[in-house]
């Protein structure tokens, strides 16, 4: 055996890779519950790829056959129902895990210097995952698949001049049709999975280069023993591989329970309207995307003309104010004035529809800038003051309620007092404010002293 390993090591860095990434990769010893979701995300990615491969063996990417072929998988293919439910429930679980994984970052400052690139790769994974999920949702060719795709592709038409041509190019037709289904299949099963796997790879390479953060948000590499190993580090294998197996076991219990007892989650994981074949003449009465898109969908719906004009006016005033009061010098002043001018111009020339798309887009773009928006001297929430704790709490509540409102009619009253659309506008402001005001409130926030060594709580 040793000889074999030596033979391989001469030709491929097997032992080196094993040591660098598992046996001698030193992770902080105080990882808690929130650190399960990275490995779980990897598990679900593998689940999606494996079940996906088996689904393609029976699925037909053809507008006339697609819906029937999914029914064929469900009723006639041996164990087809299980494989399909593993895939469809897996998609929802992927987002549950990714959202919790991202929340962990916000809690402990995992996005902060020197882990900015890990965060950016992660945000790219999130975007690729959304594209993957969106395209996958068209494939069953149910009525909600069809109209969901119709609405989202129409977002492109909001772009002035080139929008209509772009939407036509994405669809490959004047409406969502067989051509659209066929190309979405190609993207869903080949192009985007390759992108996802590549991004996950660089996400991990970047992580292992700088080392994991921890719930205290301190760098364990600063305190090393005489052997050069961080005093607060333990080898990933066997310590965290074993820990992660516990997480995997618990996750699989939940996963299996959903697959066997509530695979459509009462219309949340598989929508009722998607059990009807696509019908070009009738939009489902309540058209809603799957739950993981609803927060962003809410923001899109929040953009009525009055709201966007109000928001633009306020941001113009703010940016113009910045031009007068900034201490950053002439360049910053000129930049602020230009931004203010562009906003004013945009307010009078662009439609509310486009601003809705811009608002939804910026809600995702802002995530990428988080490492630089956060000016706090500490990373972890354990040592932050009331301002960040409050902001994060309000942000999480807004995000969840935006998601809830996204499943309801904008004109109904689902919370209290106001119509849903007004609540959605309020929560959209909170969501954007969490990011835009972050440089300010993290800077003036009172922080506690950070310990030298990691702690257990």
């Amino acid at each position: 055996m040793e000889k074999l390993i030596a033979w391989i090591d001469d030709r491929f860095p097997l032992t080196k890779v094993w040591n660098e990434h598992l046996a001698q990769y030193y992770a902080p010893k105080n990882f808690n519950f929130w650190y399960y979701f990275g490995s779980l995300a990897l598990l679900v990615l593998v689940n999606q790829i494996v079940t996906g491969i088996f689904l393609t063996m029976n699925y037909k990417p053809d507008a006339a056959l697609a819906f029937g072929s999914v029914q064929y998988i469900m009723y006639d293919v041996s164990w087809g129902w299980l494989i399909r439910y593993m895939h469809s429930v897996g998609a929802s679980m992927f987002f549950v895990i990714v959202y919790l994984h991202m929340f962990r970052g916000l809690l402990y400052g995992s996005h902060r210097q020197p882990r900015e690139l890990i965060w950016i790769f992660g945000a790219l994974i999130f975007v690729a995952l959304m594209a993957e999920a969106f395209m996958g949702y068209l494939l069953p060719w149910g009525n909600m698949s069809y109209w969901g795709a119709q609405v989202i592709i129409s977002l492109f038409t909001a772009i002035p001049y080139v929008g209509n041509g772009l939407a036509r190019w994405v669809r490959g037709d004047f409406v969502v049709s067989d051509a659209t289904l066929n190309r979405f299949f190609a993207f869903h099963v080949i192009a985007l999975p390759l992108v996802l796997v590549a991004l996950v790879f660089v996400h991990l390479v970047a992580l292992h280069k700088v080392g994991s953060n921890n719930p205290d948000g301190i760098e364990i590499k600063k305190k090393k023993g005489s052997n050069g190993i961080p005093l607060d580090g333990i080898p990933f294998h066997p310590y965290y591989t074993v820990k992660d197996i516990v997480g995997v076991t618990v996750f699989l219990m939940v996963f299996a329970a959903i697959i066997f007892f509530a695979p459509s989650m009462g219309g949340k994981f598989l929508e009722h309207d998607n059990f009807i074949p696509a019908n070009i003449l009738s939009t489902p009465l309540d058209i809603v995307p799957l739950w993981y898109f609803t927060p962003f969908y809410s923001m899109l719906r929040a953009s009525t003309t009055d709201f966007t004009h109000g928001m633009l006016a306020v941001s113009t005033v703010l940016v113009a104010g910045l031009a007068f009061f900034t201490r950053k010098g002439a360049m910053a002043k000129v930049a602020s004035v230009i931004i203010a001018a562009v906003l004013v111009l945009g307010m009078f020339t662009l439609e509310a529809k486009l601003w809705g798309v811009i608002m939804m887009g910026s809600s995702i773009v802002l995530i990428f800038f988080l490492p630089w928006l956060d000016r706090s001297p500490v990373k972890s929430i354990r040592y932050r003051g009331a301002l960040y704790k409050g902001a994060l709490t309000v942000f999480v509540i807004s995000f969840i309620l935006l998601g809830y409102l996204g499943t309801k009619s904008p004109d109904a009253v689902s919370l209290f007092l106001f119509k849903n659309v007004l609540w959605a506008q309020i929560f959209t402001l909170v969501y954007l404010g969490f990011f835009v005001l972050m440089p300010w409130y993290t800077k003036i926030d009172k922080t506690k002293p950070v310990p030298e060594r990691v702690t257990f709580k």
Partner: protein
Amino acid sequence: MSEDGVDRGKRRFLIALTTGVGTVGIVFAATPFVLSMNPSARARAAGAPVDVDISKLELGQMLVVAWRGKPVYIVNRTKAMLAQLSNNVSLLVDPYSKVKSQQPPYAENIYRARKPEILVVLGVCTHLGCAPSRAFTVGAASGLGANWPGGFFCHCHGSKYDMSGRVFKNVPAPLNLDVPPYMYLTDTLIRVGSDKKKGAA
């Protein structure tokens, strides 16, 4: 490797030149792939006009037919519906159908139609392409508030249109519903997709 006698200027020039040529080559090579995603010749050829018999369409009722893969709404409007149209003017974005792209010249009026009673519009919301549903009932019974004058309501994002498919102010949709080209072949037979006497559009 020795760097003696290396002409750095020449080296930089050659690197820049080959990079430039390579980039141009990649752009050319990518072009067919990008263009292959445009609608195919078959998709462009589809879209023949459809003839619709409206003799059975009763007052206040709507007919939905498919043209070019899109729903077309044909509504036989009542006197009350038509009377309401001029009352809506102050609530609308484009009450007199001034935006040229949204209708053929013969529908540039408050009825947005060739004949006032019969409305022909694409059932495609100008916001994001959902099919708005009929909300012809006036007032609170519609579920759209006591002042609802009757029209179309898009469930996707809450856009509202009146009985002429004109968009109300302060909703996500920016434009009135599209009126497709159409013509009357007889009093009860409408051809959707063509408004020329000879040849299809």
